[in-house]
């Protein structure tokens, strides 16, 4: 099962693990009791979720007017949050699918949580297109459902409809992919479980996994097929999300660079979110041996690359804006509209968080430092939120006709819903951390003999 790994490569699994150690370590959070910190964080997250639910209920009960939107800026925090969450949801599939195809073994320590994060983030993202509708109760009209209204059908020209398909496809493929990977791990938990109820549940969840060679063969094949299916989705989802803007006629939105720029940005923000979560999780769940400095460094490298792509995209946007000689483009990118206008602070947060700070990761010392990586990840999350805010709000606030220029300021409801989704995300993630095998232990075991530090040392000393 094992492959040969060059001695020069750093071990991926630390701490002289045996197969049994891995099983013990991964099952520990599920079999043990939650510590105080889990409860504290869970309570805060639940409270935030409740607040969000309250804010959503208020919105649906009273009208979208409780948000800070207006007739000139019809989208702001709602779609910003949507794009932000979808973007975050990109890393999981990239890690599990693309890295699988590229045979990157280090992904095994992080892919489970990255995928979980993806799914939870996409769930958050899906909330916004629904609740931002003026008449939520008719939201199902965006689905091509045969109806009694005669020829009424959805408009297949609308990028919003493409979003519906893109997101739902992405969510379902991600979910299936994730779940497939979970099967042997659930089976492992099942086999260890002593409490009958727990055993029952994990038996059901593991779909009767028996661990035979046939099971494993099918498992590998399905993984590969799903990885093949999921890979184009990594590119398609954010490409389609970017079409919401790119196909419009609004200066600043109407831009052909958007699809690659959005995809890079999404991977950028997704990896930042994975970083944020895993740096905490490796401490809290005692996974330091599985999520190592190497993982963090590798992810930082991806961040550096995608951050670079994003920065090039910004620069080319500014260049094209200036080069076009169009006063409309000038406004959105160069001058009062962005850098020196009413939203100058949002513009500069974006530039610093996404463009300037990540350049520090060129230094190996910094990119292998957990604290620096964590702070960087948070900054990028903030920067990427502002990127979407800038794209949506600044461009809408400076439209074609100067008479329609306006500004936006959020209300407590806007903020409440956003915080609510963060709460919801963490509620889901914390529950996941207590009930799911958070590292793909079956996969990790497959590389233990090649990449485990004990085995490597033994081999090298031979």
């Amino acid at each position: 099962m094992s492959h040969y790994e060059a001695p020069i490569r750093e071990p991926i699994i630390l701490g002289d693990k045996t197969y049994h150690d891995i099983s013990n370590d991964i099952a520990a959070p599920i079999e043990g009791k939650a510590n105080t910190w889990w409860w504290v964080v869970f309570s805060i997250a639940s409270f935030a979720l409740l607040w969000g639910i309250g804010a959503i209920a208020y919105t649906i009960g009273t009208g979208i007017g409780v948000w800070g939107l207006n007739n000139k800026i019809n989208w702001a925090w709602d779609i910003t949050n949507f794009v932000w969450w979808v973007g975050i949801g990109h890393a999981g599939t990239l890690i599990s699918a693309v890295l699988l195809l590229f045979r990157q073994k280090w992904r095994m320590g992080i892919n489970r949580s990255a995928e979980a994060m993806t799914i939870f983030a996409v769930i958050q993202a899906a909330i916004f297109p629904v609740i931002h509708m003026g008449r939520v109760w008719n939201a199902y009209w965006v689905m091509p459902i045969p109806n009694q209204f005669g020829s009424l059908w959805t408009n297949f020209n609308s990028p919003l409809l493409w979003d519906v398909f893109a997101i739902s496809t992405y969510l379902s493929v991600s979910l299936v992919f994730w779940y497939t990977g979970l099967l042997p791990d659930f089976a492992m938990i099942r086999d260890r479980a002593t409490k009958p109820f727990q055993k029952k549940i994990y038996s059901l969840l593991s779909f009767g996994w028996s661990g035979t060679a046939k099971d494993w063969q099918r498992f590998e094949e399905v993984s590969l097929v799903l990885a093949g299916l999921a890979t184009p989705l990594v590119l398609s989802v954010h490409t389609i999300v970017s079409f919401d803007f790119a196909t419009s006629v609004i200066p600043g939105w109407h831009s052909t660079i958007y699809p690659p720029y959005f995809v890079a940005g999404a991977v950028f923000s997704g990896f930042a979110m994975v970083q944020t979560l895993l740096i905490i999780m490796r401490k809290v769940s005692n996974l330091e041996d599985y999520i190592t400095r190497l993982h963090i460094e590798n992810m930082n490298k991806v961040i550096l690359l995608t951050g670079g792509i994003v920065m090039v995209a910004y620069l080319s946007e500014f260049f094209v804006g200036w080069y076009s000689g169009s006063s409309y483009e000038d406004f959105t990118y160069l001058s009062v509209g962005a850098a020196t206008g009413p939203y100058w602070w949002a513009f500069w947060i974006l530039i610093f968080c996404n463009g300037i700070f990540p350049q520090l990761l060129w230094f190996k010392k910094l990119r292998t430092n957990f604290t620096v990586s964590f702070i960087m990840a948070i900054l990028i999350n903030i920067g990427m939120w502002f990127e979407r805010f800038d794209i949506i709000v600044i461009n809408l606030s400076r439209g074609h006709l100067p008479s329609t220029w306006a500004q936006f300021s959020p209300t407590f409801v806007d903020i409440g819903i956003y915080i609510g989704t963060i709460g919801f995300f963490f509620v889901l993630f914390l529950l996941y951390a207590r009930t799911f095998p958070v590292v793909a232990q079956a996969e990790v075991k497959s590389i233990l003999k090649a990449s485990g530090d004990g085995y490597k040392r033994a081999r090298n000393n031979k």
Partner: protein
Amino acid sequence: MLIQYKIKQTINMASNKKYWKSVEELKENSSIVEKLKQKEFVEEIPADQFLGDKDTLDSSSTSRRDFLKYVGFSTAVASLAACEGPVIKSIPYVIKPDDITPGVAEYFATTIADGIDFANVLIKVREGRPIKIEPNKESSFGSTNARVQASVLSLYDNNRLKGPKAKGEAITWNKFDTEVLAKLNELKGNGEKIVFLTGTCASPSTSSLVKKFSEQYSNVAHVVYDAISESAALDAMKEMYGKRSLPDYDFSKAEVIVSVGADFLGDWQGGGFSTGYAKGRIPKNGKMSQHIQFESNMSLTGANADKRVMIKPSQQVNALIKLYQAIVSGVATREMSPLNTAIQDIAKQIKAAEGNAVVVTGIQDKNAQLLALQINKAIQSSVIDVVNTRNIRHGDDAKVTQLTADMKAGKIGAIITHNTNPAYTLPNAKEFTEALKKTKLSVSFAMSDNETTNASQYVAAIPHYLETWNDVLIKKGQYSLTQPTIHKLFDTRQFQETLLKWLGSNETYYDYLKGNWNNNILGGKSWNQALHDGTFSVSVANEENLVNDVDISAAGSALSKIKGSDLELTVYTKAGIGDGQQANNPWLQELPDPITRTTWDNYLLVSRIDAERLGLENRTVDNGALNGDMVNITANGVTIEKVPVYIQPGQAPGSIALALGYGEKGLQEEMSIGVNAFPFAKGIFHNASIEKVSGEHEFACVQLQHTIMGREGEITKETTLADFVSKPKDEWNSPPKFSLDHQEVTQDKVDLWEKFDDLGTRFNLSIDLATCTGCAACVIACHAENNVPVVGKHEIRVSRDMHWMRIDRYYSSDMTVEKGKEEGIFGTGDFFNAQIQPSDAPEVSFQPVMCQHCNHAPCETVCPVAATSHGLQGQNQMAYNRCVGTRYCANNCPYRVRRFNWFKYFDNNEFDFNMNNDLGRMVLNPDVVVRSRGVMEKCSMCIQMTQLTILNAKKEGRPVADGEFQTACSNACPTDAIVFGDVNDKISKVAQLEKDDRSFKLLDFVGTKPNVFYQLKVKNTKEA
């Protein structure tokens, strides 16, 4: 059938089968079975135990029967109460009135004459409810402004008086009459003076009634008083031409128009001049009028002028004198100031125009008015008509001042006010209110409670003009009739009716009016025809005017003694609120001021220079809204506290201005806004001092960026007359060019989209920027026609105005591309920041914008549920009940004309305007749906009107005639700047306009192919 069969089967089976309960049954002749057959209950029922005891039964008040009755009844009642039927307040026509067909509108010609606005109008009545006011285009005063358009909502004002009152208590009309008559007779006996204090009614029949009353009560005086007074002009006319009425002006004849502080496109001398003015504003044969405006605060008129000279009110006086000297006396002052040079230049142009010129002035001073009249006389102006004069202002300020003094001295027995609110509109209102208490009898005829009714002993509730009979003599020889279009909503009685009662007559005012017309006016012509037309013209013999010899030099020298001051305060009227009599009308409160684009407020207009000097600021806050500092103004011995400051480009430094009509008492809370400027209303200007106070005022503006940011070429095109005449079209109206294979091509070469079928009717709307004065009558017309909700000050402040059409107003900036390149800052942030600032003396352009009904509409492609789609007649249609409210369409609209229902705007106490009460809802147009929360709405090109036109033509089996297709805005436009029609009808006006050289499309380069197009503005910048 099937069921019956089954039952039969069951019965048959029953006869075959036997069921048994115990083995005993199987035995024949079992005693037990027999016993059971006889007795249902095996054991004795102890009925005796509870029925046998007679005492218990007697003591019980409820019998078993009663108990069951109660149970039955309460069950029935409870279930009935649970299912309450809806209360439907409509009553079907059991017997249909002959002249009403449900669903078909009727039109009645009538006339509004409320003291400030005078117009011949048509009232659209649906199922007995007046719902819309249209101009009566067949009459000579058939143009409406925003207030006239909105007056239909004032009919359904919840704030109106519902009946007569005495000392604040409701009484009956009988009691009212008895008590007032008793007092009147007592006064008559004592020979005390009875005074009628009214606004200008211009009604011959009312005047004759008042005259009759005077005959009966001997010591009677009729004092006329206008809130927006033209007393100075009237006095000047009296002095020069011997009659106290206003000259008429036909601006269509003018080649040169010089206005010194006269807002003649606004409310100057009663307004209504824009129709004639507009005729001269489109170049014909290379000629158009030239309009020069001297003014201090930016007025609608100044904004439309070819040349605007920004001077303080005291300098205006000076300018008028100089103009007079240059034109009439022929004395050219050799002073080398820019103002003087301009005046000398204008004088030359006036002389060159040979009588086709006019000088008008709004300086509220008799001498100034005399000067203007004299100039027009000297140049033999063909524009001014001093023979057939206008009757729409009669107010005499001197008499009112005298009256107040007399009242104070106790010389007045009774004061009867009608159509006026002096306790609010008089500069010395407080004094008047005090004096009013000294009269023995005070009766106020009013539509709603106000300052005067509160101070009067008796309040007579009068009906709205849509509920009354009356006549108006707007101009000499031009009679008009007012007729009721709805039965009186409340227990009201019109002033004239009451006068007839007091005179002891049993006649109704209708009979009196008809009699008066038949005897004195109609001259044998048909009353019915006159009523049908709403107007009746009498040819007047072109009598020569008696011209008095007036000592103009004395007037001039009196004028030249007027000294200016550091800060000169004037008052002005706004297009929406006017004199404030319709201040409780939410449509008008929400109407953006054409110049400041601010709603729900009045404010002190200050120039940037003065603001900086005094440390006053306007700030943009986070949500983009405007905040302003506040000041206390002291002038004329009065201090008004906490007045917000609005920094107005084009305000002459050293001058400040405040709008009238605000700060009235007794209005609904939402409408009780602003400060009362009437204390400053009298005279030319007041020497004012202002003092900054703490606090910040929150404005509600619909436009927050005032300059066009160098985008003129694509948004509001403009050219000069010289270029228009001499240069090829491409130089002043070039279509957008696109690059294809390194070649410059026109738009059709690069279009990605397929064309729609262009068969049948295709509606186009043409808007002429040369004749659009920005008056905003169309905005209100649209509001009324399309049930547009009023959203209130806060929502407007956060850019959620719901108007389907708006009139964008742009100021020019001092920073141009050329200047930027010269200074080397072009393309930098500094350049843009400079461009954002309007010039201190800006040129102004107006541009009405509604849904452009694009043929390639960006909104249509992005709607996920196809709620907005292209109509076969060129409209971009909106299916409200399909809309889910993603608002993507609004984001993708380059024109930002889509309006979202952020809240439920009807039946919602948060928005307590006309859609939140039964009375106010009567104004709703039944042909247009009221939109629910969460849907997008926008201009529909009045599809309900165009469909009706098509249907009517179809029924009559004829093609639709040109001009028959109308939208609310095109119909309301007093200058015909908005033309609507079928562009596929090649002879239609709109098809001609589309091909016109001046025609262009808004943001044409985007490629949306709108069905709305504009005609560019031409400015006559010719120098002498």
